[in-house]
């Protein structure tokens, strides 16, 4: 946009605006840098305060301790499993559904359409949901994290919109060649909607990686906790003694060893471990997230 020559007032406004935006961006990012610095700092030393951006007493101790803990490794495994399976199943189920309802003359299409619209605005609530899962034998079962989320109405809508944008002639010519719907779906439709598939895969992955609720509610065993649920329990003050079993706190070992870790410094390392995957995919994923949000905001 071309602007006229800036007046003094405008210059002042621009300076103010830029300052405000820089400040805002710093507030958004800095908390992560702070936690990162603490996670690499000697825990005892960190209690003195005064660490702002860089570690003062650099150490890997927090990470090595955390990665030796069975509970953490177990939860990490659960989180990875549900994220990978959740993405595979979610993308498959949603894309198949979206492709079928993208045919505008499919009999009962309206019924299947309503089937995804209603749950977007109304739900039975957590208690009946829990009881249904219980009756289906899914409490304390890892699939309770995955299967109920495999059909996501919002993702189906998003995929349906991009399938509908494809030129019908592509499919028609394949049909003339005798291709069935499975082949058309797998060989023609899917490759053409890859950006939307990426959006759905990323949104599903983020959801599964970030979810702590199912782990809190749908299981009674802490061995079933995904990483986020384990972290939540630790933040809310659950027992951390398992982390201190390797002689760090014990006097029984005989050999004197300086204690450097604290519950707080271990929390910082766990926070970083939990958030790192998000930061790693974010630069590549940003445009897909925004795309997903755009499509979602213009329904129908």
């Amino acid at each position, binding site marked *: *946009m071309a602007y*006229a020559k800036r007046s003094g007032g405008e210059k002042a*406004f621009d300076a103010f*605006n*830029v300052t405000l*935006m820089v400040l*805002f*961006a710093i507030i*958004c990012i800095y*908390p*992560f840098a*702070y*936690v990162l610095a603490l996670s690499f700092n000697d825990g005892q030393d960190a209690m*003195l*305060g005064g660490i*702002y951006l860089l570690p003062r007493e650099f150490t890997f101790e927090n990470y090595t301790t955390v990665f030796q803990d069975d509970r953490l490794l177990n939860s990490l495994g659960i989180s990875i499993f549900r994220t990978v399976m959740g993405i595979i199943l979610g993308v*498959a189920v949603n894309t*198949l*559904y979206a*492709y*079928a*309802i993208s045919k505008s003359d499919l*009999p009962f299409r309206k019924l*299947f359409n309503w089937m*995804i619209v209603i*749950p977007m605005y109304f*739900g*039975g*609530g*957590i*208690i*009946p949901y829990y*009881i*249904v899962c219980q009756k289906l034998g899914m409490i304390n079962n890892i699939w309770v994290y995955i*299967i*109920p989320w*495999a*059909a996501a109405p919002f993702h*189906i809508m998003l995929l349906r919109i991009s399938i509908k944008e494809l030129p019908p002639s592509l499919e028609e010519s394949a049909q003339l060649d005798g291709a069935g*719907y*499975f082949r058309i*779906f797998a060989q023609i439709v899917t490759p053409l909607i890859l950006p939307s598939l990426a959006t759905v895969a990323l949104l599903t992955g983020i959801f599964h990686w*970030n979810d702590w609720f199912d782990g809190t*509610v749908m299981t009674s065993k802490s061995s079933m906790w995904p990483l*986020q649920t384990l*972290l*939540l329990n630790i933040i*809310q003050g659950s027992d951390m003694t398992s982390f201190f079993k390797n002689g760090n706190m014990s006097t029984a070992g005989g050999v004197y060893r300086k204690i450097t870790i604290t519950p*707080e410094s271990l*929390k910082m390392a766990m*926070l970083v471990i939990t*958030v790192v995957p*998000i930061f790693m995919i*974010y630069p590549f994923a*940003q445009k897909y*997230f*925004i795309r997903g*949000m*755009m499509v979602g*905001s213009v329904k129908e």
Partner: protein
Amino acid sequence: MTANQVLTKQPDADSKKDSHRLFGPERRKLMKKYRALYLFLVPGAIILILFAYLPMIGMVMAFQQYDPVSGFLGSKWVGFDNFIRVFNSPDFGRAMRNTLVISFLKLIFGFSMPIIFSLLLNELRNYRFKKTVQTMIYIPNFVSWVIASGIWYSLLGDTGIVNNLLIQLGIIDESILFMQSKALFYPIIIFTDLWKSLGYNTIFYMAAMSSIPVEHYEAAMIDGAGRYKQAIYITLPALSKTIVLLFILQVGNLLSAGFDQLWTMSNLAVRDIADILDTAVLRTLTSGSINDLSNGAALGMFKSVVALLLFLITNWIANKLDQGSLI
């Protein structure tokens, strides 16, 4: 061309007539043609029926004295007893009050700030700078509330950076227990909510702005409108549809208040003012008492129904207003 139109129109009209009959010959033919596609619908449909629709049917337990052995079908019916008991309990009044207070605070700040910030972002002249700022302010949205809560507990803790700075600047002598303070709890909730979602919520508005034709601004400039006037008279009106849409969604969520945030950020010291409807429902589940389940279901159902009504009412009003403004 015309022949083509007639040809394509013909089956359409037929199928319209046909749709009055559930299984007319035309539909049967189509169903046969598409029979493979119904298989595509099966996995999604089964999952939705089991995990979205069965729980909706399960809401009948709100009118029962639910007992796990007899299930939804065999449990004793008690009419509105559960609702009456829930509405009369002191916990409900407290949760309702907290929910509304937090929701209104979020409506005031969480709703207006993204509009203001997107107008300000739009005024940034340097494209690269603007993109960099946008990339940074979206990030907090992608981490879970567990992470956000952990981070802010650390920043606001007694050896955290906020206390550190305040002491060094001589503003306070002793660390403030931010997270344990009832007076500071709502401001912290609002602030952290903004921290997490403000940047991301500007996306909607930025998208709407990018579709404003440049000619509108050029015409305004010729008429002598400065940047401020352009923002108020061109940009802002162009956002009105988006503003209304987001407002409807937010009003529909009035009884939600942000469950994830309040469950992860609250602690015993602030329980009184942090308990909302959703946390109250969940507590009936985690309490382990079977008698509580029906109460929890009643409370949950009340919340779902009110949310739906709020959504439908605001949606209806928005439609009316839109029609009115068109004339």
